[in-house]
C-alpha cells in the first residue's frame, strides 16, 4: 500500500518536472528560464531525498543539501547579473 502511494507521488513529481522543462524551452525571456531552473533544482532536492528513502541509505541526503546550496547560488548569481542591465 505504501509503495503504490510512493509510486504515485513519484509520477506526479515527474509530471511537474516535465511541465517545468516545457517552460524552460518555451519561456520568452531569460527570467522565465531562470525561474524554471530554480523550480527544477528545488524539485530535484525532493527527488534525491525520495531516492534516499527508497534505497535506504542515509548518506544520499548530503547530496540533496549540496543541491540546495548550488541552486540558491545559481539563481542569485544570474539575478545579480541581470540587474546590471540587459
Amino acid at each position, binding site marked *: 500500500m505504501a509503495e503504490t502511494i510512493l509510486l504515485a507521488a513519484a509520477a506526479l513529481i515527474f509530471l511537474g518536472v516535465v511541465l517545468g522543462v516545457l517552460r524552460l524551452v*518555451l519561456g520568452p525571456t531569460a527570467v522565465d528560464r531562470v525561474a524554471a531552473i530554480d523550480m527544477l533544482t528545488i524539485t530535484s532536492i525532493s527527488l534525491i531525498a525520495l531516492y534516499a528513502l527508497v534505497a535506504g541509505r542515509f548518506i544520499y541526503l548530503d547530496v540533496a543539501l549540496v543541491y540546495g*546550496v548550488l541552486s540558491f547560488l545559481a539563481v*542569485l548569481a544570474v539575478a545579480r547579473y541581470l540587474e546590471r542591465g540587459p
Partner: protein
Amino acid sequence: MPRAAVIPLLVALGVVFGSVAINYSERTVLPPLAEAYVEMVPRELGAPNVITGILLNYRAFDTLGEVAVLFMVAAGVGLLLGGRAKTDDPDETQRTAAVPPSEIVRHGADILVPLVALFAAYIVVHGHLGPGGGFQGGAVAASCILLLVLAKPEYRVKFAQLSVMESLAGLLIVLLGVAGIVFAGGFLDNRILPLGEFGALFSAGAIPLLSVFLGAKVGCELSVIIGRFRA
C-alpha cells in the same frame, strides 16, 4: 534553430534516457578488480568510502597532479584578468554600486554564510565516511566566497592572503607525502597515523588530514578565480 524544433529533440532525448533508466538493473556480482578494491580498502585503510580510499591513498599521486592542474588554471585566470582587477579606480566602484543588492539579500547572506562554511567543513572532514572529500568541500567553500561577493558589493577578495594559504596547504600536502615515505609504505601512505575504529570520525589514518589540506588548497584556488571575475 527554430524553437519548435527543440521539442522533438527533447522527446527523443527523453526516450533514450528513459529506456536506459527502465532497463537498468543493479549488478549483483562485481567485476574482479572492483571486488578486490572493495575488499582491500576497509581492511587495509580503515575507510568505509572506497572511492575516497582509492583517490587519497592508492592513487594519491594522481590527486596531486589534479591539484597541480587547478593551480595552473588559477594562475592562468590570474594572468588574463589580473591586470584589470588591480586598479581600484572610482569608475569601478561606481559601476558596482549602481544597483546595490536589496537588504533582504544582504541580511540573508549574513545568516547563510556561516551555514555554508560549516557545511563545507563538514563535507571536507567526512570524506572517508560518505560522499565528500577535499575537492568537493573546496568547491562548497568557494561557493561561500561567491555568496559574499554577490551579496556585499563592498567585500574585497583578499588575494594575497588566499595565495599564501594555498601555497602553505600545498607545502603541507607534500610534507605529508614525504612523512608517508619516511614512516610508512610509500608517498602519501595513510598509515602514519593510527587507523582507529572503523566508521568513526577520527579514523582511516591520515586521510582526513589530507582531505583538510586538499580542501583548503582547492577552496583558495577557486575563490581566487571567482574573485578575479567580479566587475
